[in-house]
C-alpha cells in the first residue's frame, strides 16, 4: 500500500501546477475557463515537438509556457472583446487547440523515451529516480506557488483579484478589467501548459488526448484542498490547491489499488466533484456557491 505514496506525490505535484492555474481562473478571476483541457496538451505538444527536433528541454518547456499564455489570452480576448460567454470562449479555444496541437506535433503522439528531457540527468543518478524527480517537482511547485502568491499581492495583482471579486468597483478605480482578465487567463494557462510540458517529459510521451478531463481533476483537487485548508488568504488558497492535488492523486491511486479500472477514473472524479458542489447547495441555498462571471 505504501508504494502508492511516491507515485501519488510525483503526480500530485506535477498536476498541482495545472491546479494552481485552474484555481487562478476559477477562484481568483471567477472565470470558468475550459481552455485548460486544450492548453495542457498544448504545453506537452510544444515541448515534445521542440525536444524531438533537438531543442534544449529547458527552452522547450519555456516555449510551452509562452504557448499556454497566448492560448489563455485568446480565450480572455474572446470573452471580453467579443463578449462571448466565458464558458463558450473556453470551449471554442479548447476545440481549436485540438487541431493546433495535432499540427504542432505533426501526429497524435510523440514518444520521448530515447530523447534527452529535463529528467534525463536525474535518471542517470545513483539513487532511485523517484527521489530527484519528486524533489524537482517540489521545487518547481514551490517556486510557482510563491511566485503567484507574491504577484497577487502586487499593485497589479490586487487589481487582477478585484477583477474577479468586484469588476465594476475596480473599473471605477481605473483598471482596464478586460486587460486584467486577459492577462490573468494567460497566466493561468501558462501554468497549465508548464504542467503539460513537464508531465509529457516525465511520462516519456506527449499525446493529443492527455488533457481530457483535466479541468474536472483540477476542480476535484481544489475542492479537496479547500476542505482541508480553509482558503482565507491567497497564500492558503495556493497551499490548499497543492495539498489537494496530492491528496486527490492518493485517492485515485488507492482507488486503483482496490480494483477501480483506470477507465473509470473520470467517472469517479466527476462524481466526487458533483457531490462536493451539491453538498452546500443541499445544506442551504444561502451558503456560498462558486462565484462565476459571464455564465
Amino acid at each position, binding site marked *: 500500500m505504501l508504494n502508492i505514496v511516491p507515485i501519488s506525490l510525483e503526480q500530485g505535484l506535477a498536476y498541482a501546477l495545472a491546479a494552481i492555474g485552474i484555481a487562478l481562473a476559477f477562484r481568483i478571476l471567477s472565470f470558468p475557463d475550459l481552455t485548460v483541457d486544450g492548453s495542457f496538451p498544448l504545453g506537452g505538444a510544444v515541448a515534445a515537438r521542440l525536444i524531438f527536433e533537438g531543442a534544449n528541454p529547458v527552452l522547450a518547456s519555456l516555449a510551452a509556457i509562452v504557448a499556454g499564455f497566448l492560448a489563455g489570452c485568446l480565450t480572455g480576448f474572446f470573452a471580453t472583446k467579443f463578449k462571448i460567454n466565458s464558458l463558450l470562449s473556453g470551449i471554442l479555444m479548447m476545440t481549436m487547440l485540438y487541431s493546433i496541437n495535432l499540427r504542432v506535433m505533426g501526429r497524435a503522439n510523440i514518444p520521448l523515451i530515447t530523447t534527452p528531457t529535463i529528467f534525463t540527468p536525474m535518471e542517470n543518478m545513483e539513487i532511485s529516480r523517484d527521489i530527484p524527480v519528486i524533489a524537482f517537482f517540489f521545487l518547481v511547485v514551490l517556486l510557482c506557488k510563491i511566485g503567484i502568491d507574491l504577484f497577487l499581492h502586487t499593485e497589479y495583482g490586487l*487589481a487582477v483579484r478585484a477583477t474577479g471579486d468586484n469588476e465594476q468597483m475596480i473599473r*471605477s478605480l481605473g483598471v482596464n478589467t478586460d486587460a486584467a482578465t486577459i492577462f490573468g487567463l494567460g497566466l493561468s494557462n501558462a501554468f497549465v501548459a508548464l504542467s503539460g510540458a513537464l508531465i509529457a517529459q516525465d511520462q516519456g510521451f506527449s499525446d493529443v488526448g492527455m488533457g481530457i478531463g483535466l479541468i474536472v481533476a483540477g476542480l476535484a483537487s481544489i475542492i479537496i484542498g479547500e476542505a482541508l485548508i480553509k482558503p482565507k488568504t491567497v497564500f492558503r488558497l495556493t497551499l490548499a490547491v497543492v495539498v489537494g492535488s496530492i491528496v486527490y492523486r492518493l485517492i485515485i491511486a488507492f482507488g486503483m489499488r482496490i480494483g477501480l479500472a483506470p477507465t473509470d477514473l473520470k467517472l469517479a472524479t466527476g462524481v466526487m466533484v458533483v457531490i462536493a458542489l451539491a453538498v452546500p447547495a443541499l445544506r442551504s441555498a444561502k451558503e456560498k456557491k462558486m462565484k462565476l462571471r459571464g455564465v
Partner: protein
Amino acid sequence: MASPMLELKNIVKVFNADTEDEKRAMDSINLTIEKGEFVTVIGSNGAGKSTLLNIIAGTLQPDEGSVTINNKDVTRIPDYKRASLLARVFQNTTMGTAGEMSIEENLCMAELRGKKRGLKWGVTKNRRSRYREILKTLELGLEDRLTQSVGLLSGGQRQSLTLLMATLIMPEMLLLDEHTAALDPKTAAKVIELTNTVVQENQLTTLMITHNMQQAIHYGNRMIMLHQGKIQLDIKGEEKAKLTVNDVVAKFSHTLKDEALLSN
C-alpha cells in the same frame, strides 16, 4: 470666471430604442456644475437619476450630447479612464468594495485610483500605518481589522469604508447614488454626516442622489429635481438655503406622486 467642473450638453439617452419598451431616460439634459458645488438630486423612481450619474461616470454612453469634466471632453472616454477624475459610492453596500479582499487591500486599490499599477508590492508597511491612522477617524474600530476581509463588515461599516476610499485620493468630483438608502436610519444619519464633513472640508464638487427630500434640502448648496429624464427644478444659493419641504411639495406635488420621496 473659472471654468465649470462639469458640463453636460444636450444629453439624450434612450433605452430599448425602436421597441415597445422604448424609454427616453435622458431627454436633452443640460447641466453645468461649478467647482465646489454640492448638488443634491431628487426625483421619483425611474426619473433618470442613476442614468445621469452613469453617463457622467462613463458606465453608460449618451446617444447624443457631450460630457465635459474640468474642461476635458470625456464623452467617448471609457469609465475606467475617468477614474482619476471621479469617485462613486452606490446604494448597494457591496458594490464599492471587493468583499473577498482585506480592508487594507481595498484601501490600497483606492489609493491607486487612476494611477498606473505595476509589480510593486501593494500594501507596504508605510501604507498600512497610514491606513490605520485614517481608519481611526471613522471611529468604527476598523483600524484593528486591517487584514480582515471586507465581506465580514456590516453594511454601514462597508459604506463608511467606501466613502473613505472614494476620498482617500481626492477626486475632481464625487458621485453618490442613494448611498445611505440601504442602511438603517441611525447608520444612515452617521454616513450622511460623514459625507457632509468630507465634502465641506475638501470643498469637493459633489452630486448626491437621495430619495430623502429632507436630506436633499438640508445638505448641499444646490438642488435639482429630475422628472421623466428632464431637469424640472434647479434651486441654488439663497433660495436653496431657505427652501423647505413644503415649498417643494407645493410647487411640484403633481410630479411627486412617489410616496417614498415625501416620507422623511
